[in-house]
């Protein structure tokens, strides 16, 4: 008898806590699970929805809440929005649907596990968080770099790591993760090593993202005398066209 009452009591307490879970009526939060966001612009031609942080927010990958980003002042936001939009306008609605990208979150001083980063893609929520205060000289190219991670996450089978690794010189080995080494430099290398930047040497997916971003941002201005880079560019082009055969690598100015 006591056991039965105890069970009923326990169930009542549990139900009480379930029922008073704070109600998050915020539509944006319900959609992408990031708090403190407002709409910046949603009626864009390629239907990307731009959101911005009104207050700092903390997010968690898995259990740890280790992603931080802060709100920006309006002036910086307006300026960087134009740059971000100009770059992302190069991707068609059809392509964005195929790669599962819909929301762009603009905030500043984005970090993951206290390491600053240009962006954090999440293909499940179809969201790309961008740090609008990221390194000025590489900011625009970094947008395409982060976008490539969304592509890669959606088409892992297409971007085969073993094939890619075979493009490199024998004995070369990537690090275990993008933050496991001190290869952070994003300046262009011109040493015939088969990599665009020092950061390319960190992991396969960062290397692919660097190739993609250089290809998209610098387009035909890239001097491909490095045969390894040449092979990598051909690989990326081929795979992107497999995703969308109408993809245009050149800017329509």
């Amino acid at each position, binding site marked *: 008898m006591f056991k039965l009452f105890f069970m009923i009591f326990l169930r009542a307490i*549990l*139900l009480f806590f*379930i*029922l*008073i*879970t*704070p*109600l998050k*009526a915020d*539509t*944006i939060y319900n*959609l992408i*699970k990031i708090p403190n966001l407002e*709409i910046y612009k*949603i009626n864009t031609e390629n*239907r990307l*929805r731009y959101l911005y942080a009104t207050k700092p927010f903390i997010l968690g990958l898995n259990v740890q809440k280790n992603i931080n980003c802060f709100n920006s002042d309006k002036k910086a936001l307006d300026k960087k929005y134009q740059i971000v939009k100009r770059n992302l306008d190069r991707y068609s609605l059809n392509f964005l649907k195929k790669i599962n990208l*819909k929301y762009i979150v603009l905030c500043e001083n984005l970090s993951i596990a206290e390491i600053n980063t240009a962006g954090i893609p999440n293909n*499940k*929520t179809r969201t790309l968080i961008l740090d609008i205060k990221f390194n000025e000289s590489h900011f625009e190219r970094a947008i395409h770099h982060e976008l490539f991670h969304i592509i890669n996450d959606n088409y892992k089978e297409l971007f085969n790591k073993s094939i890619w690794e075979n493009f490199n010189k024998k004995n070369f080995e990537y690090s275990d993760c993008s933050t496991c080494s001190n290869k952070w430099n994003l300046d262009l290398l011109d040493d015939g090593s088969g990599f665009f930047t020092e950061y390319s040497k960190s992991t396969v997916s960062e290397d692919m993202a660097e190739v993609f971003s250089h290809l998209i941002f610098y387009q035909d201005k890239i001097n491909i005398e490095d045969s390894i880079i040449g092979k990598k560019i051909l690989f990326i082009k081929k795979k992107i066209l497999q995703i969308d055969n109408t993809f245009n690598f050149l800017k329509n100015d």
Partner: protein
Amino acid sequence: MISKIKISKSEKIILYFLIILGVFTLASLLMLKNKCLFVKNYDPNGIKFNNPENIAILNTNCGNIIIELYPNISPIAVKRFKTLIKSGSYDDVAFHRVIEGKLIQAGDLEFGKKENLDYGKVGSGKSGLGRIKSELNGKFKYDKGSVGLARTFELNTEDSQFFIILQDEALFEGEYTPVGKVLYGLEVLETIKFVPKFHIVPRPDFINTFKMLN
């Protein structure tokens, strides 16, 4: 010896005033308790519809909500919705999630039925017919009174649960599969029980019946 006390004129006025005040207070209390009192109940039989085959009537305690379904925009979702309506599956199902002025959600056929409402699980139940694909490419504006199919965090997980929005929601466009729009009875929707700050409505209102017009 006092034979009789006569009520003065002013005392009479006060007495009448108190009686009137009492009656008025009682009547007000009764009126306030009846949330349906000033809500218009629409009779679908007295209304001419352009597409009567796509008209669904959701009946609640305060009256009818008349919904037009859009099979041209979301053929798979509307087909599922009609199947469940025609089979009477939505009858006696709770409006389990109601956010004041924002949306009402119902349609959990597994844990939302009046006879076996499970507060711990309502919102996660299935219809038994399986999940259907999200239909997000049609042109549809999510303004007040729009009806859509609810889903989990992932696309292509729509089943039987649906929602009706009580305010314009531009962000819902391209996110949730639309099924139709409320033509009449938005004021009925506003009487559905909600509890501020509660995620799931305790002792919720229920759908009486949900039927197709034809």
